[in-house]
């Protein structure tokens, strides 16, 4: 017997038919005929292969992976919307899912009526929904429009209505799929706040998101799904580091060489090794056909996506015909250990300068040292870090 909030999903396999035959019935009939004639049928596509997921009450697991890796399929299997092809799933206690539920909302009804329908769809009893009605309305920010017909709502309002109800389910297991893709900044913040509150109540959380920073801040454990199999599972930091590492391998650094100005060489070094809190030099070699006045910007990112750190200020300098070496020094470097990317962009030195070097990753480096002491557990979305810097240049 499992305790409430425990998840035991063992050896989960899930397959889908390959859509070569339009309807399910035709597909099955075709397979039957194929079997009788001893021909091979169009096969199955495995969406999940031998996935195990275990959670104790109060655990928080972040599911990460590329599109089509099977994250949502796994989540659907946990919510019992879908059944696995093989394996066993047991989820103890009440399950609540924070998912996009706009589909259950009828435009012809008022917000109030829709809240009750959505609540009962999510398994909330009518009297519980009535008790929390005001809270739900406030959470969804619909105080002034609750009696309006939903067809006059904006898309964001409709989504907030659905999430508002989901947020007050108080389940033993909460499953969240891409909640951050919905709503404006303040609503996202409220959603995360609510998730954190629910976590503190001892709810088990399974969180699917492409927002790695939010996953890192919310979850203790991580699971990386790749092509339907578990690539890595463990403490969230380690899993994320591996995931980012793999994404970097995929996105090979190949600076473009066909512009008027090119980065022909990029290197990261330090006098006594690359350490957290130590100095860091970024050596860049630009090649230009003519003499140009350019402003150069450098950033550092953890994945290949948005930089987390921007070297400030950008540097204005002359690029002479031929090659120009530029060194950018950062001291101290306020980053934890890990693998980072250096991004470079250069623009003609005017107010809205024409692009000379497109903003792109040019090199990567490994930083050694302790992990930064973690901030109080909370949901922090990453912002670029601005640091002071000094520059010198030579030709």
């Amino acid at each position, binding site marked *: 017997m499992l305790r409430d909030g425990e998840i035991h999903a063992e*050896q989960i*396999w899930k*397959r*889908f*038919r*390959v859509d070569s035959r339009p*309807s*399910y*019935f035709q597909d*099955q009939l075709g*397979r039957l005929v*194929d*079997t009788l004639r001893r021909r*091979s*049928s*169009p*096969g*199955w*596509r*495995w969406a999940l*292969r*031998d996935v195990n997921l275990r959670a104790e009450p109060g655990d928080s697991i972040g599911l990460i992976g590329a599109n089509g890796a099977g994250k949502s399929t796994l989540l*659907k299997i946990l*919510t*019992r*919307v*879908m*059944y*696995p*092809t*093989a*394996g*066993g799933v047991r989820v103890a206690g009440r*399950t609540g*899912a924070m*998912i*996009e*539920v706009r*589909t*259950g909302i*009828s435009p*012809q*009804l008022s917000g109030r*009526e829709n809240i*009750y*329908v959505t609540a*009962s*769809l*999510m*398994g909330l*009893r*009518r009297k519980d929904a009535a008790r929390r009605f005001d809270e739900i309305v406030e959470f969804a920010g619909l105080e002034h429009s609750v009696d309006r017909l939903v067809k006059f709502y904006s898309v964001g309002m409709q989504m907030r209505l659905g999430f508002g109800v989901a947020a007050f389910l108080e389940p033993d297991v909460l499953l969240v799929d891409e909640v951050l893709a919905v709503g404006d900044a303040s609503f996202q913040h409220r959603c995360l706040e609510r998730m954190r509150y629910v976590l503190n109540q001892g709810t088990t959380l399974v969180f699917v998101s492409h927002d790695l920073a939010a996953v890192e801040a919310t979850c203790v454990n991580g699971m990386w799904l790749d092509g339907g199999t578990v690539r890595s599972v463990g403490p969230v930091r380690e899993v994320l580091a591996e995931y980012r590492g793999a994404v970097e391998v995929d996105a090979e650094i190949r600076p473009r060489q066909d512009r008027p100005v090119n980065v022909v060489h990029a290197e990261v070094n330090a006098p006594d090794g690359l350490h957290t809190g130590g100095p860091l030099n970024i050596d860049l070699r630009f090649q230009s056909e003519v003499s140009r006045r350019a402003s150069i910007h450098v950033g550092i990112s953890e994945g290949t996506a948005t930089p987390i750190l921007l070297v400030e200020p950008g540097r204005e300098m002359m690029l002479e015909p031929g090659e120009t070496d530029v060194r950018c020094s950062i001291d101290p470097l306020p980053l934890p250990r890990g693998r980072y990317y250096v991004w470079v962009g250069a623009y003609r030195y005017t107010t809205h300068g024409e692009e000379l070097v497109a903003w792109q990753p040019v090199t990567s480096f490994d930083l050694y040292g302790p992990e930064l002491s973690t901030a109080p557990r909370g949901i922090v979305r990453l912002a670029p870090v601005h640091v002071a810097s000094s520059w010198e240049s030579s030709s």
Partner: protein
Amino acid sequence: MSTEATELDVRGTVLAEGTRDLPGPPPEIWFRRRHTLLGALRELRSYDELMLSLAERDLRTRYKQAGLGVAWAVLTPLLLMLAFTFVFTKFTRVDTHGAPYPLFSYLGLLPWTFFASSLSLGSTALTNNVSLLNKVYCPREVFPLSQIIIAAFDAVIATLVLIPLFPLLGYAPKLEVYYVPLLLLVLLAFVIGVTLAASITLIYMRDLRFAVPLILQFGIFVTPVAYNADVVANTPAKMMIYSTLNPLVPVIDGLRRCILYGEPPQWWPLFGGACTATFLMVAGFMIFKRLETGIADVA
């Protein structure tokens, strides 16, 4: 169903491009959903509120959009009754055993309309809510059943027409009305069974959607809605067969007997119809629960 029926394919045959050479799961962990009839019913019981909410949602939506509102529920059987009355009293005669024809046909139309609208609404209940079925868990029979509630709501409103109809035609209902609930139980069992089976079948075979209106058009002629059951079955044995094959027969015949003629229903045909209806209900529910597992895969 997708998982069990085609085990052979995975073990025996070549897999598709991309997944070629990837072995499937070991056969002993193949997923089989276990549930009992009683467990399923208990779960359904805990979702009664959802069933009502869905019915309420659809009713509210319908009446907010429609100018005539509730009148639509009355109009369908009423117009059919007028048409029947016109045809069957002007052109041919139907032996109603002395009862006014409008009442006679209306008592046939009420259960028929309930059945017809349950089936046509309920059979598309799952396909219309596919996106919801892919997101939220609930026992899936909630959707077709909520449509039956809607049809029942319409039927209750349509029944109110009888109140002015009796004095208008100068005919008094008989006191044997107390048999009616029994007849309605048989009707309900039949409707539930057929609707559940139809709705889950439609998920797997969408084209059947076009067959439902056809079946209903055909059905109104093989059911004694416009005529008396004894026209088709003039001996007790024939009546027994007719009723067992079509549980609507003893229901409609019974309604007429106890309301118009003051007789009890014919017990043996009713028993035959009740057996069929009960069988359909249990079988329909079990088929539904069995096929329910694959909804998210095919929808």
